[in-house]
């Protein structure tokens, strides 16, 4: 199949969908390519085994190699990760944005300058609080924070609750920006994987890949915007000869623990819990996770019989997490022979210290909120029942014992001055290329320390409007 377009956009997650919508609405001929398929938003239950298979790359089993390894997830469907993540909206921290501008030489970039783009994201996509309060597990976390004298907040979501409906509607990309792009004339190719961008010197001319029927696809373009996420974007660019990208990977390593309460705290109808402890951000985030029985069981120990006994009162248990604003660093390369992305990451000692201290804080808060026991993440360790015992958690994480996961990956094509080691300029144009742009989480120079979807959307909007001005 051969296709021609003005602008090819690779990847339909938040960055790609925002780019496609704005360009198409400005009259640009756009082709939006997505490797995964289009699935109805409610095709599978959120956070279920089936949803993992359907909407995440490799069924959610992707790993950054290192000691310890860090498991992470990437969306792989129309709309990308926005189709299956928690959809939490947290505005970026002003000091972090200003630090990015200074350290990486990003022009026209500050908290003030990003503010109208954030406002537009909130207004156009839709961000809401639950109409009927938090889940009981979130309430316990908030109570614990107050007992410890710490600030906490409700994190809003890319969600809406028409008529006070409890379940609500996810405001994912396939429900918002992709339909906007299509309505403005964008063509969407799903099930299509781009393997290489063909170039003539500094100028890219076409993209080559595979269509849904397994046949080769070639797409000729004037401009290409790569928005395939912090792993697939550098993989594609490196495969195409731009080998200055792929270093500097940042992520937020996370550890989960289970706490048991004397009363019911786990109500799946509330969906994702939305309370986070603010006191230690951006260095450390403490929150509550989705806690259906299969999720609880992953963080407990025992045979099926023992787990079932533990889970007989699963409604009194919930999963909580600590997440560090990672100070480690990693890289993305291509695996020889297999051709997949090879992701490596080294967890910094600082992150062990932050997360160990965070586990102590979390356990103390939960116990202060009435938890009867907190399960240590250390295999074989007995549950903790007092604040004094919780101190043990400070040292449970080590390269040999830790089991980290990460949801947010960034910084593999940082924006900023070339001299500062950035892969793209201040508005996402790839250094060393005339007509290749990046517009996704890869651009964020470091981990933002908060849920990044709002920041990614706002930065993508900022960059796209700039490109339109330059046309």
């Amino acid at each position, binding site marked *: 199949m051969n296709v021609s377009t003005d602008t090819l956009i690779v990847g339909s997650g938040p960055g790609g969908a925002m780019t496609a919508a704005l360009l198409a609405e400005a009259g640009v001929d756009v082709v939006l390519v997505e490797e995964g398929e289009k699935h109805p938003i409610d095709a599978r239950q959120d956070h*279920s*085994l*089936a949803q993992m298979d359907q909407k995440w790359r490799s069924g959610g089993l992707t790993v950054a190699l290192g000691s310890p390894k860090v498991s992470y997830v990437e969306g792989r469907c129309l709309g990308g990760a926005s189709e299956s993540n928690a959809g939490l909206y947290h505005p970026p921290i002003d000091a972090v944005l200003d630090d990015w501008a200074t350290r990486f030489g990003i022009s026209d970039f500050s908290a003030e300058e990003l503010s109208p783009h954030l406002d537009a994201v909130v207004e156009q996509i839709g961000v809401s609080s639950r109409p009927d309060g938090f889940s009981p597990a979130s309430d316990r976390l908030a109570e614990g924070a107050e007992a410890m004298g710490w600030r906490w907040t409700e994190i809003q979501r890319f969600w809406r609750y028409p008529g006070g409906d409890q379940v609500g509607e996810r405001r994912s990309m396939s429900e918002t920006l992709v339909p906007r792009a299509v309505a403005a004339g964008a063509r969407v190719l799903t099930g299509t994987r781009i393997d290489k961008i063909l170039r003539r010197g500094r100028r890219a001319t076409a993209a080559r890949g595979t269509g849904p029927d397994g046949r080769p696809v070639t797409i000729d373009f004037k401009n290409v915007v790569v928005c395939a996420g912090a792993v697939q974007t550098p993989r594609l660019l490196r495969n195409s000869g731009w080998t200055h990208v792929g270093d500097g990977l940042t992520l937020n390593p996370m550890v989960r623990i289970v706490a048991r309460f004397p009363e019911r705290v786990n109500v799946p109808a509330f969906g994702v819990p939305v309370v986070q402890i603010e006191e230690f951000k951006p260095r450390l985030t403490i929150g509550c996770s989705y806690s259906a029985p*299969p999720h609880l*069981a992953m963080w407990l120990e025992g*045979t*099926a019989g023992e787990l079932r006994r533990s889970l007989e009162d699963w409604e009194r248990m919930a999963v909580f997490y600590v997440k560090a604003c990672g100070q480690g660093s990693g890289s993305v390369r291509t695996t020889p022979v297999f051709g997949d992305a090879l992701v490596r990451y080294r967890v910094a000692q600082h992150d062990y210290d932050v997360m160990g201290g965070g586990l102590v804080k979390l356990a103390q808060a939960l116990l202060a909120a009435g938890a009867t026991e907190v399960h240590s993440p250390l295999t074989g360790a007995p549950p903790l029942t007092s604040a004094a015992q919780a101190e043990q958690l400070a040292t449970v994480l080590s390269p*040999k014992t830790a089991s980290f996961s990460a949801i947010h990956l960034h910084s593999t094509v940082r924006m900023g001055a070339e001299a500062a080691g950035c892969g793209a300029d201040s508005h996402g144009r790839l250094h060393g290329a005339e007509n290749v742009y990046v517009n996704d989480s890869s651009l964020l120079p470091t981990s933002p320390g908060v849920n990044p979807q709002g920041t990614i959307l706002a930065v993508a909007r900022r960059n796209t409007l700039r490109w339109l001005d330059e046309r």
Partner: protein
Amino acid sequence: MHIEPVVRGLVSGLLADGEHPVPVDDTAAVLVRKIDNMPGLMRFGMRVLLWAFDWYGLIRGGRRFRGSSLVKQRKRIEEWSRMPVGPCRDMIEFHRKMGVFVALSLEGGEHPG
């Protein structure tokens, strides 16, 4: 190598007990499918580890893991979960965590397909 018998043994050894039935076959089938969907290097590494683990049973206990008794299978799992080599521990941890997640998801009504 057919990995399903090894994965089935791991699911049994990690989860089964006399008290409650566990959907061992369906859980193992889902895990095998998940391994097959892993990125290439991970898939290759996991298959090599499962192969080594299977033959480790012969060296330590006289029979390959897949054909060992449940008691011996548990012993081999215990030994590998304490191995100084990280990937060996990771392989056991993967089957423990994903095994319980899949088994409980299936019991909760999710379809193995």
